[in-house]
């Protein structure tokens, strides 16, 4: 079985034209991060070889006249047998040209995802009161795309980049869950879409959302956004198994080089105050008294939820107070790399798993199982965790990956027949 990992860096000038920059790429870095109640964020940095002056502005090089800020970028990878999967998509936020000598130069692009770019937009009107109740994931799409019914424009959305097309690009939100948050969109003040998402929408439920892909459509581009609703369980789950390779790896396991196990006391929340944006319902404060007796109050307050019933306000308060009241000694991050994988594994399942791990769509907010043995422990410890951040450093010779993790017990919901998330007195109800 051949283990391989192939990267490709390309940008779209329009839906018919994509330009492959892989051969110029000296290195690249990707960070994908999510947090519950917050919008996910993806950033990337691409360092291109400009020794020939191909990218020097106002020069004669092939790319000297490209307006980098209007292009749609994709960084993608593939395993030996899989198809290309998108690790990052976004647009350029900064360009840096480093001239070392007349024969050596580096051209660096800094990129951010579409939620960051479009979220800066200030909506000229309040988010329509005509869209009174929608699932949160659909409402997220409407905030960018607008809402039109029977020819009447109730809310025009925000200005999205055209990326060389005749039509604005659009957001395509996606959610696969067994329980939905319904939100009311009444009385949102005129303001920035990013503030609506972070202060109103994602704290309701709560949930999180992150960019996964950029795809071409008829005459326009579609930005794909994945929404995680309040049960926190993905219905399309992957399980990545990481091992310290102290024993023989089983099929699909990915070996890691380093592990960091720490207390997560900074994440403890044992009290939450929640109220809706309109103050239509009663403010609810929920407290985990067992936790506050040990640690004192660690309160969070969300007073701008777009909940549509008192029970939904209560759910927000109970969510935070019930889930995060325990300080745990847990795996915070692990480091692995393609070279480590290739040395330890001759397994096609691990080959494909490694490729998918390096993406938002298949890697972020997925389940991870990590085995480790620490001094003082008589046997191997196996932890069930959730992937909250993936940092990827790409060079021509290797790909380094740092994965930051959260305890699965706090960040997944009870699942019938599951040996890991169906445990009484341990796993939580959605």
């Amino acid at each position, binding site marked *: 079985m051949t283990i391989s990992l192939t990267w490709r860096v390309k940008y779209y000038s329009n839906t018919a034209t994509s330009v492959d920059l892989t051969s110029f790429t000296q290195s690249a870095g990707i960070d994908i991060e999510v947090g519950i109640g917050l919008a996910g964020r993806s950033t990337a940095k691409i360092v291109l070889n400009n020794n020939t002056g191909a990218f020097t502005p106002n020069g004669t090089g092939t790319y000297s006249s490209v307006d980098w800020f209007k292009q749609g970028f994709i960084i993608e990878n593939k395993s030996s047998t899989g198809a290309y999967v998108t690790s990052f998509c976004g647009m350029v936020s900064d360009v840096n040209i480093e001239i070392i000598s007349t024969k050596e130069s580096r051209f660096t692009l800094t990129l951010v995802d579409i939620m960051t770019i479009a979220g800066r937009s200030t909506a000229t009107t309040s988010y329509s009161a005509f869209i009174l109740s929608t699932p949160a994931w659909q409402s997220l799409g409407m905030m960018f795309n607008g809402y039109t019914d029977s020819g009447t424009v109730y809310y025009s959305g925000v200005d999205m980049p055209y990326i060389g097309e005749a039509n604005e690009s659009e957001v395509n939100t996606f959610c696969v869950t067994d329980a939905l948050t319904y939100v009311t969109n009444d009385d949102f003040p005129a303001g920035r879409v990013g503030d609506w998402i972070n202060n109103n929408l994602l704290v309701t439920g709560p949930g999180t959302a992150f960019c996964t892909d950029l795809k071409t459509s008829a005459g326009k581009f579609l930005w794909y956004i994945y929404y995680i609703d*309040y049960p926190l369980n993905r219905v399309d789950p992957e399980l990545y198994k990481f091992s310290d390779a102290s024993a023989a790896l089983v099929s699909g396991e990915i070996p890691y080089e380093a592990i960091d196990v720490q207390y997560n006391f900074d994440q403890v929340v044992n009290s939450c105050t929640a109220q809706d944006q309109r103050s239509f319902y009663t403010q609810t404060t*929920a407290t985990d008294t067992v936790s506050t007796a040990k640690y004192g109050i660690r309160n969070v307050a969300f007073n701008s939820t777009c909940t549509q019933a008192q029970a939904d306000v*209560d*759910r927000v308060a*109970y*969510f*935070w*107070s*019930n*889930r995060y009241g325990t300080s745990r000694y847990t795996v915070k991050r692990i480091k692995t790399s393609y070279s480590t994988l290739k040395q330890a594994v001759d397994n096609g399942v691990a080959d494909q798993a490694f490729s998918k791990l390096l993406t938002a769509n298949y890697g972020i907010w997925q389940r991870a199982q990590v085995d480790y043995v620490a001094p003082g422990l008589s046997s191997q410890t196996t932890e069930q965790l959730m992937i909250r951040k993936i940092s990827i450093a790409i060079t021509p010779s290797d790909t380094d990956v740092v994965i930051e993790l959260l305890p699965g017990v706090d960040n997944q919901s*009870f699942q019938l027949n599951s040996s890991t998330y169906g445990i*009484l*007195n*341990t*796993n*939580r*109800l*959605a």
Partner: protein
Amino acid sequence: MATPPVFSSGSVLTAAQMNSVGMWLVSKTTIGSAVATVTTGTVFSSDYDNYRVIIRGVKTSAVNANLLLNFGATVTGYYGSQYYDAYTGATTGANRRNNGANLYIGAAENTLGEDVHSFDIANPFLASSTSINGTYYGASYSGWFGGTQASSTSFTTFTIRPDAGTITGGTITVYGYRSQ
């Protein structure tokens, strides 16, 4: 802890809460077509002391037939009675068993399948007498029935049959009452 079955979103589902669930489905048996008897699978066990049985939708080939109950393979030592009252007021009466071969559990429908028989069974798995009491509606009759199987046999199954002809369709659902 919220009083079951009211749960708060995000709370831990505890063993104590699950142990407070009072009734659990044990089995559901679908009755075939034109059968003389129906015997359940293993439904009685040490998991529960007492059970609720609901039989519904049974159609008999004979008019005004009654359903009869046996535990295991035991065909003697049954003591009990059944009261019946027609909603027309035309007929009331009782059927009795005094060391009989089975127990009456109510009249069943001939054509409509509207009948329902609901009864509790106490101690079928224990090595002591097994007693029942319940009510029914079928074939325009309502009534109650009760009785006992007066032996120290431990049973795991029961059988129903009509006192004439065959039966078709309907279901036998058995629930266990949690008592620990």
